[in-house]
Structure formats: structure tokens, C-alpha cells
């Protein structure tokens, strides 16, 4: 039997804090075992800016602006298996705590109502992605295959989850690794 090909994995943080990525690095020595089995495509770890065809996509963070929508769609189009990793990707998380506020008022509060910025305008550079009126979990924008809860999920939970995926097992996160906080 030939050596199985390495699986291509992409990761991204949308409206997240990179905490899930930090937790991913927390798998410690398993990182070697992981790198034996996978090669990374687009990821904060590779600094690649676009995503090629992949086996697995790990998405941290929810969808808070138009850029998040484009990136998430790219991931969905390129990744055979798409995983929502962490609370924000799963239910919007901390960024979604703005959902009961008017986004227009948020923007003007930030850019126009602060001391010393009285005359400032809300930035209108086309380079900047516009924020959506509400932050959404990623499953409300694309189809998602698996969910790994946690804020962040522990390194142990991430390692078990990825090991399941790599081995072709349906990933299962159960007590005591399953946490929403």
C-alpha cells in the first residue's frame, strides 16, 4: 500500500479573535504528527491569501462584513469538508453581541462621537469591507459539515476532532471535551 497523500487543510479567522487558532497551536507535540499528515493551504500560519482546492477547511469566527462573506464562500467552494470552529463561527459569539444595536449608530458612535473625532466622517474607502447589520454564524451563510464548539475549543478537543477527520471517522466531541465556554 502506498503512503496516503497528505490532506490539504485551510484555516481562517473571520469575525473572531484568533483564539481558536491559538488553541490549535496548543496541541503541542501533536503538531508534528499533524504535519506528517496534512499540508496547509490558506491559513494565518502560511500567510497564503487565497485558498486552493482543499480537503478540510477550519473556519473560526462569524460573519460580520462583506469580506467575511466572500472568504467564507471561497472556503465553501474549495473545501470538501467545512468545519465551524469555536463559538463565534457557531453562533456569532462575542461579535454578535452587537446585534441588538443599529450598525449605523455603532459606526457613528465609533467614528463621529468620540472626543477629538467630532468632525470625522465614517470611513468610506472602497477597500474597506462594509459591516452587515447583524453578525451571523457561518451556517446561516453557507452549508457547514461539522461544528466544534468552545470559546475556544481546547487544544485537546481540536486534536481529537482533527484526528477523527484525518482517520475518516465522523468527528464526535463529547463530555468532558464538549464546552460552549
Amino acid at each position, binding site marked *: 500500500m502506498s503512503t496516503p497523500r497528505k490532506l490539504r487543510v485551510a484555516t481562517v479567522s473571520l469575525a473572531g479573535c484568533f483564539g481558536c487558532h491559538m488553541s490549535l497551536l496548543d496541541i503541542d507535540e501533536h503538531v508534528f504528527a499533524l504535519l506528517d499528515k496534512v499540508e496547509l493551504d490558506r491559513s494565518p500560519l502560511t500567510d497564503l491569501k487565497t485558498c486552493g482546492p482543499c480537503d478540510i477547511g477550519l473556519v473560526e469566527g462569524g460573519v460580520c462584513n462583506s469580506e467575511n462573506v466572500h472568504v467564507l464562500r471561497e472556503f465553501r467552494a474549495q473545501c470538501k469538508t467545512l468545519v*465551524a470552529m469555536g*463559538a463565534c463561527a*457557531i*453562533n*456569532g*459569539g*462575542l461579535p*454578535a*453581541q452587537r*446585534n*441588538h444595536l443599529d450598525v449605523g449608530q455603532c459606526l457613528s458612535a465609533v467614528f463621529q462621537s468620540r472626543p477629538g473625532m467630532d468632525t470625522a466622517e465614517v470611513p468610506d474607502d472602497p477597500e474597506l469591507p462594509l459591516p452587515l447589520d*447583524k453578525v*451571523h*454564524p457561518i*451556517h*446561516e451563510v453557507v452549508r*457547514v459539515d*461539522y*461544528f*466544534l*464548539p468552545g*470559546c475556544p475549543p481546547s487544544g485537546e478537543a481540536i486534536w481529537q476532532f482533527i484526528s477523527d477527520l484525518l482517520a475518516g471517522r465522523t468527528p*464526535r*466531541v*463529547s*463530555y*468532558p471535551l*464538549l*464546552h*460552549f*465556554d
Partner: protein
Amino acid sequence: MSQPTFLLDGQSVPFDDGQMILEAARAAGRYIPHLCWHPDFPPHGSCKLCVVKVAGRHVSACATPARAGAEVESDTPEINTERRTLLQMLFVEGNHFCPACEKSGDCQLQAMAYDLEMTTPRFRHFFPDRPVDASHPEVLLDFNRCIYCELCVRASREQDGKAVFALTGRGINKKLAVNAESGRLADTDFAANDKAAHICPVGVILKKRVGFAVPIGERTYDRAPLHEVALPKLEGDT
């Protein structure tokens, strides 16, 4: 005459005449999930997490009298999937942001989601706008997490003799109301040592300044899963 029994997932459970399926199962050390049911009160039947299948029909175990010889299905993939969907509905209808909730680790909704391995709320979120009420000196009300079990309504009415809480609105616009024209808890006769202050299964009614006295990781459901904690022998622990 020997005590009548029914079968719960194939195992015999004895019961007394008039006893509900859930009660009899608990007495026999068998757990059926529940959120709105509480041993101090008559069955309520609103959360539907205690759904079981009897003779092909899905019924609330808390409100269905046990019958001799009945075959009750509870811990089956079909029923647990149904329960998981109900949990998902409760999660999307409110704002349940566990990482910022003082009740995390002590919350029955969260613990049940762990028990039933719910990893996603699945549906679209309603993201309702529900302001918190911090008016009371000792207790905070965070309506974002209310699951309408009415335990506080019942405890305040039946145990505290006060009727501090009631439900108003209808359907998805239902909400918890406070017994004051201002709508503020501070303007009621609510007290921090009321029974109603300690009965919320989720994080709506919270005593101020003690939220993190027990660190995350050492809380009720960090130590043992809900299906163990909820059984009578451990009821006093919660």
C-alpha cells in the same frame, strides 16, 4: 399484590398508581431529560425535553401517567434527536452566549446540550432584543436566556406567596414580566432569599457579585454530567 411496572427502554420500572412516567423513572434511578419539571411543583409540560415514545405516540413523560406494561422509549436515537432539535430551538430563540454567562457550568440548558451532544444551534438565530434589568440591588435579570419554564413564576406564586413574575405576550413574542408598573424588579417585593431567586435553570435570575465565586471548570456540570446530577440522590447538590 406486587407493584405494577412499565418498561423504560426495555428495563422494568415500578410505579405507584397515578405516578407520572418521569417521576417513577427518577425514583428508580433512571434519568429522563427535563427543564421545566421540578420535584417541588406539579408537571408543567412546556419544555417538551422529557418527550418519550409510548405506543408510537410522543408524549411528555412529566405529565403522562405510568401504565402497567407500557413500553416507553426514551434513550433512543430517534427521541434524542428530537430532544436535540428542541434544544436547538431554545438556543436560537434567545441570546445564549455561554462564554459571557455567569451561569456557564451551572446551567441546565447548557449541560443538557452537552449530554445530548448538541454541537450546533443549526437554525437561524432570532437575535431578539431583550434588555437586562439590573435595577434590583442584589439580583440581576438577564431576559436573553429565558426558556419560559415558568419555574420562577411558580416558585414566586406558590412558595414565596408573592407573584413577582408572570408571562406576557404570545407565541414567539412571549416574555417574562415583572410585577410592577415600571417593569423593574427593584419596584417589586422580590428578595434575594426568595425561592424564586434560586430556581432558574438557566442564567436569567442571577445573584449579583457572586457570579464567579466558583471558577469556570469547577462548577456543577464540570464535575459530573447532568444525567447524573439530576437524579434524586444528588438533587441537593444543585
